[in-house]
């Protein structure tokens, strides 16, 4: 079975975001980048599928050369092949989806995995866009995935519960935390990844559909207020919640 995983290279979760001087993106100075955490879960799932059904795992990332670091990590975890669709990294979701869909069409995998969202722009739309562009079913926010002959049985998270979804293959799945525990790359895996080639090619072009007007910081919370110590402060808290905040 051929499984493709689309992955992204994002600022790590400890990053304190600063806005760039042109007010349209973040200031990348001093920011550490990493494999997007949900994408890591998607890679793990692909590896488990390969362990069960044989076949190969291809990882794809669209962006500048820096994304090779993340592709290298996927290879170290055990992916067989990596493809970098080169681009300057400023595309909108549609642009990313169109570039990935063109490559996926050529690879023709039976299963395509994404993380449920990339933790930079939090759009949560690329995976579903790719599915629609390829005419495939998709299941988002997947916490359980079981492949059978020509179909998949999944569980996905919804507000306050779960949906059980049956999808015909080929299909796109977007991984949510809880689907599995991603493995750490082994030393052997890390060494092997150094010699695995990363195929590089230009990403298929696509016109932007969304324009960023400006990026800004959220309005600062008026810096915190401590109303008291220990349980003696409880009556004052209740009074403030009732009279000032009016939430009780």
């Amino acid at each position: 079975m051929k499984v493709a995983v689309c992955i992204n290279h994002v600022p790590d979760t400890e990053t304190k975001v600063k806005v760039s001087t042109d007010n349209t993106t973040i200031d990348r100075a001093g920011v550490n980048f990493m494999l997007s955490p949900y994408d890591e879960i998607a890679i793990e799932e692909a590896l488990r599928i390969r362990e069960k059904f044989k076949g190969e795992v291809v990882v794809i990332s669209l962006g500048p050369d820096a994304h090779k670091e993340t592709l290298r990590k996927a290879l170290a975890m055990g992916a067989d092949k990596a493809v970098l669709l080169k681009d300057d990294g400023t595309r909108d979701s549609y642009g990313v989806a169109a570039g990935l869909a063109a490559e996926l069409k050529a690879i023709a995998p039976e299963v395509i995995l994404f993380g449920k969202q990339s933790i930079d722009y939090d759009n949560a739309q690329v995976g579903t866009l790719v599915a629609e562009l390829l005419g495939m079913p998709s299941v988002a926010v997947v916490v359980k995935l079981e492949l059978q002959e020509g179909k998949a049985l999944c569980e996905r998270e919804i507000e306050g519960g779960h949906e059980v979804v049956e999808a015909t293959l080929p299909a796109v799945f977007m991984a949510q935390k809880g689907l599995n525990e991603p493995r750490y790359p082994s030393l052997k895996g890390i060494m092997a990844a150094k010699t695995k080639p990363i195929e590089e090619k230009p990403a298929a072009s696509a016109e932007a559909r969304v324009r960023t007007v400006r990026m800004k910081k959220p309005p600062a919370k008026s810096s915190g207020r401590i109303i008291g110590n220990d349980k003696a402060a409880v009556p004052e808290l209740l009074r403030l919640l009732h009279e000032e905040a009016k939430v009780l």
Partner: protein
Amino acid sequence: MKILVVAEHRDSRFKKAALEAATAARTLADTLGAELVGLVAGSGVAPFAGDLGAGGVRTVVAVDQPDLARHSNTALAKVIAAVAAQEKADIILLPATQTGKDLAPRVAAKLNAGLAADCVALTVENGEVIATRPVYAGKALVDVAVTTPVKIFTLRPNVFTASSSGETAQVEQRTVPMEPSDFGAVVTATRVASGRPDVAEADVIVSGGRGMKGPEHFALIEQLAEVLGAAVGASRAVVDAGWRPHTEQVGQTGKTVSPTLYIACGISGAVQHLAGMSSSRYIVAINKDKDAPIFQVADYGIVGDVFEILPELTRQLKQTLGK
């Protein structure tokens, strides 16, 4: 100009997020001088379709047909795209619920439309709709414009106010012919936990962190949540430790929430956690370390032992609320 608002429902009622989207659509339509039409699709939806009038929508298209009893994102996206095309809608709004987030990209691809997802504000600048959306889990915001002729926006639940005018909309029934191939992925069962609300939808959240010292002490969090009708939330540390399910995790790799009241108990306030809850309207923090970062975003902080303060807070609240 025409706006189409797609209304989500469950158990023959519109979801709160649907009424919020309808109200936001009404406001936007008034600002732009645009027409507004609602859409509800499913099986058995016609009888309650008119309730969308509560949000200020006067006409609702109800696509009510038995084959839609099988919930499928591909099938619903086809219905939405078809009605949007029939109505010549320029702007389509959906709630950014799990269902809405699953449908909007498909509708966007079908209509060659750009999509701004999970918006927290819609404004009009020089005649152009500008959507504000959080990025990096709320560490920053971007204002974006959709540049295609048809523009799609999904709206974050719990952010826009839902009006309830008590009015009823006029319902126009329509059918959209479906093919078997439209049902590529089908929901075969839905399991919704009854009782406590989900963190993503809750008005009040009581959240616990490592300061709770062990999973057994979350009973204190649950008791307070019970009194307040609140959802239970958790920090990444306690979810990673296996104390609480990941569905409760608040923060950058969990849920980004903006309830009216967020009560953080024994949570120090890591950057990724603050990102996920700082947009809450009122934040209460209880922590023994007076230098914990959580106090910098707290409207009302109490320094002290959660094991003493929480039971006392629960007890006094019970009295106040007469429970």
